[in-house]
């Protein structure tokens, strides 16, 4: 396969650095830092107490080691926990946003203006953990939809935040979630009132800018009874030699008959070809479904040096549905341990898991999932399909599905296959005039189709491009 070996190198396309004066907290973590963050955000007392409680729990916890990843554990005292682009003044419209920041977004390919015009996507942009601007806020407000930064929500909608924050991912759920609960600096908040169908995609873009900072955003989405929302999340970070830490928490609450569709295109800086630098992406994402509710996670994971991420669904209500569609691409020295948990508690609950792993270079990709059918979950159904595609013989691909069944009426099916791109498939494409690199892109896209189909249109195109970029120079 000489032809595959010679395929070019591709550099991280989003590795630029925006010079915006930032407002940083001193490096390190202690109760004072947490007080600093809370004060900086003008938070009420209860929020500070909540953070401190999480912090005290975190001190007692140890960093998990069960995932199939190897990395040097970050020194948590070496990280800056607050870094905000200094606002020149309060921002009310896009015209007032720092033009340099706007350029950043353009480079990211998410020119806000364009998004606004073309697709009507409402965007909340978070740079180094602070929400910079939420578009379409007023328009959404007319329908009673709240879409703002979580900091604003803490101040403006304390009763909603208080009621739901930490109910899906408890503040001491795991090491990284506890850390996030203590120090989260911003993130998005979204509330869809009863019976409202959110008319546009809501979107958040996360970006780590400042060096030596960690990003700890917190997202809370509440879909009230009978409502619907589709939520998009995108991530990038500049190229840096050192590893940057990203430990986010996302909580989704789908009340009776509500539906939440949550899509992520994760493209944090993966490190260079020697495995130097890159983002540690340790994320806790979980949703809870009440009666007849549905939560659907779709993720395209192409970035990060280390990924530790299991978007999950607790199917608490009868007839609720959980879905997980994932494409995880690892190249060079990237490591990803990702999957989902489907916890069936209610009757007639259904879940679907489609996971497509693609490993290239010297990377390691693992699917780790749990399907749990509780004793009261009559007639629960699960179907899981976990496929891996290996490119080259220096990478590793692993599958660790846990299936725990405590009810006899359960029907659970799990399938997994491992394959490579066939030389005959490539030759076939070559013969029809398609160059090898194009052919690989074509085949990989075909392989991922079930997942990409779940993404909203604009996102699918971006995801497809990302796949191609991530795999350039990967085959050998």
């Amino acid at each position, binding site marked *: 396969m000489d032809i595959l070996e010679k395929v070019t190198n591709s550099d991280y396309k989003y590795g630029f650095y925006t010079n915006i004066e930032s407002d940083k907290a001193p490096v390190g973590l202690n109760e004072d830092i947490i007080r600093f963050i809370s004060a900086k955000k003008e938070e009420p007392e209860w929020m500070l107490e909540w953070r401190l409680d999480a912090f005290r729990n975190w001190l007692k916890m140890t960093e998990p080691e069960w995932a199939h990843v190897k990395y040097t554990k970050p020194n948590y005292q070496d990280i800056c926990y607050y870094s905000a682009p200094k606002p020149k003044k309060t921002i009310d419209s896009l015209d007032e946003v720092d033009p340099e920041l706007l350029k950043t977004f353009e480079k990211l390919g998410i020119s806000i203006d364009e998004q606004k015009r073309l697709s009507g996507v409402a965007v909340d942009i978070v740079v180094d953990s602070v929400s910079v601007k939420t578009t379409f806020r007023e328009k959404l407000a007319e329908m009673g939809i709240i879409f703002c930064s979580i900091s604003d929500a803490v101040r403006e909608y304390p009763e909603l935040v208080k009621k739901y924050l930490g109910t899906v991912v408890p503040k001491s759920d795991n090491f990284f979630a506890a850390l996030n609960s203590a120090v989260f600096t911003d993130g998005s908040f979204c509330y869809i009132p009863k019976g409202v169908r959110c008319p546009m995609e809501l979107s958040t873009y996360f970006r780590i800018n400042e060096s030596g900072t960690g990003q700890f955003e917190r997202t809370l989405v509440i879909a009230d009874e009978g409502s619907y929302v589709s939520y998009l999340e995108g991530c990038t970070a500049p190229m840096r030699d050192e590893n940057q830490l990203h430990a986010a928490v996302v909580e989704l609450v789908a009340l009776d008959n509500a539906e939440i569709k949550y899509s992520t295109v994760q493209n944090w800086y993966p490190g260079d070809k020697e495995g130097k630098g890159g983002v540690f992406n340790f994320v806790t994402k979980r949703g809870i479904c009440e009666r007849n509710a549905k939560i659907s996670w779709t993720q395209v994971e192409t970035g990060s040096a280390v990924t530790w991420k299991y978007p999950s669904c607790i199917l608490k209500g009868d007839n609720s549905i959980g879905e997980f569609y994932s494409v995880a691409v690892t190249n060079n020295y990237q490591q990803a341990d990702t999957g989902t948990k489907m916890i069936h508690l209610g009757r007639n609950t259904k879940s679907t898991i489609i996971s497509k792993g693609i490993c290239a270079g010297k990377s390691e990709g693992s699917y780790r999932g749990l399907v749990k059918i509780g004793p009261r979950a009559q007639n629960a159904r699960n179907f899981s399909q976990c496929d891996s595609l290996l490119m080259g*013989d220096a990478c*590793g691909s692993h599958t660790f*599905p846990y299936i725990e069944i405590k009810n*006899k009426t*359960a029907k*659970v*099916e799990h399938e997994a*296959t*491992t394959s490579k791109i066939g030389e005959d498939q490539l030759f076939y494409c070559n013969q029809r005039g398609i160059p090898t690199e194009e052919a690989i892109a074509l085949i990989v896209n075909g392989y991922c189709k079930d997942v990409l189909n779940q993404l909203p249109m604009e996102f699918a195109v971006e995801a497809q491009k990302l796949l191609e970029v991530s795999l350039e120079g990967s085959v050998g």
Partner: protein
Amino acid sequence: MDMFKDKLLSSFIVFENQLNGGKNTPFHQQRRKAIDVFEEKGFPTVKNEEWKYTNLKPIFNKDYNVFLSSEESLEFRDVRRFFLSESDTYKIVFINGFFASWLSSTTHQNYDVCTFSAALERHRDIIDKYAGSIGRNEDNFTALNTSFAREGAFIHVPDGRAVEKPIEIIFLTTNNENNTFSQPRNLVVVGRNASCCVVERHQSLGEQASVSNSVTEIFADEGAQVTYHKIQNDGENASLIDSTTVKQKKDSTVTIHTFSFGGKVTRNNLEFDLEEPGATANLYGISILNNRQLVDNHTVVNHIAPHCQSNELYKGIYDDNARGVFNGKVHVYPHAQKTNAFQENNNLLLADTASVDTKPQLEIYADDVKCSHGCTIGQLDEDALFYLRQRGIPFKEAQALLMFAFTTDALQNLGIPELKNKLNRLIARKLSVSLDFDL
């Protein structure tokens, strides 16, 4: 569990003193190393990922007799039901860990079908070469077994020989008065292009608790053919921890059938090393459990060499409060290209209180491989059940028939007619039907 562990550690000193001259052999050095491993590791708890679903506390919180006394009053007719045949098989029979020569039928002609202790005398070269070189010495239970290893079955088939009769290995325990703990140690060495077929069984005869910690090492040289059947149908107080490790050379085929129909806790650790190209490993398992029985099948297939094949198929049917655990790992090493690994685990749950935990895993470090695994948990097909009943077959029998159908693909290639009949009867009794279904 600590109390029994301490007892075992001090028992080792007693055991060592009994050995006299045996203390100076290379094999005894292995025992010493092994007891250190066990001392350090002790019994695994559920915190150990490999024992996540099987809690041994209720078993090892009890006390057991470690040094059992011999029992010579048993006659063949008392235990006839545990055997395949009265005359058409070789037999290596143990009672309370002591060789029962009057129940056995061994041989040294053309090949050796005898006891481990006899081999320690007669075939020290083979023991030193193979015993302890195949098993997982760092494993808690293998280490414990090795420390006390003295007796068990020994099969050695030289190059080109075929053992023409099935070999039955039976471990009987008379646990009428005391709780018993026994540790058989088996070694099967099959030479180039040689073959043999084995049926192994552990059976407790009393009502007290019994635990067997059995270790079997199987070596299959180039072109060897080994078929090994484990029949596990012990009483409600009997537990078995079985660790079987297989090492395979070029173009050899080893097939292990595990039939688990009874026992309190049955843990099967089955591990294959496919070391040379062309080796084929077949792992077939059928578990049919009820009451509070638990079976935990832990399999590992290490594809070390390229061009090897493994087929794994485990079927489980669980009723009442029975529990099934399946943990299957296929590990494809770097450069083990053209590996073909297939793994499937299918389960039927018949009661709300029964449960299944399954974890099929793939760890793959080579790209030109075909690996797949699948598992299902479900119930019998309602339409099929209705169809059978409409043609007059009663519900229970229809169910049993469908369950038979469910297990059949794991019963393929069952070569011994006596075994087939025996399993037929065992399964029928297990499902409490009297129909004669054909496997």
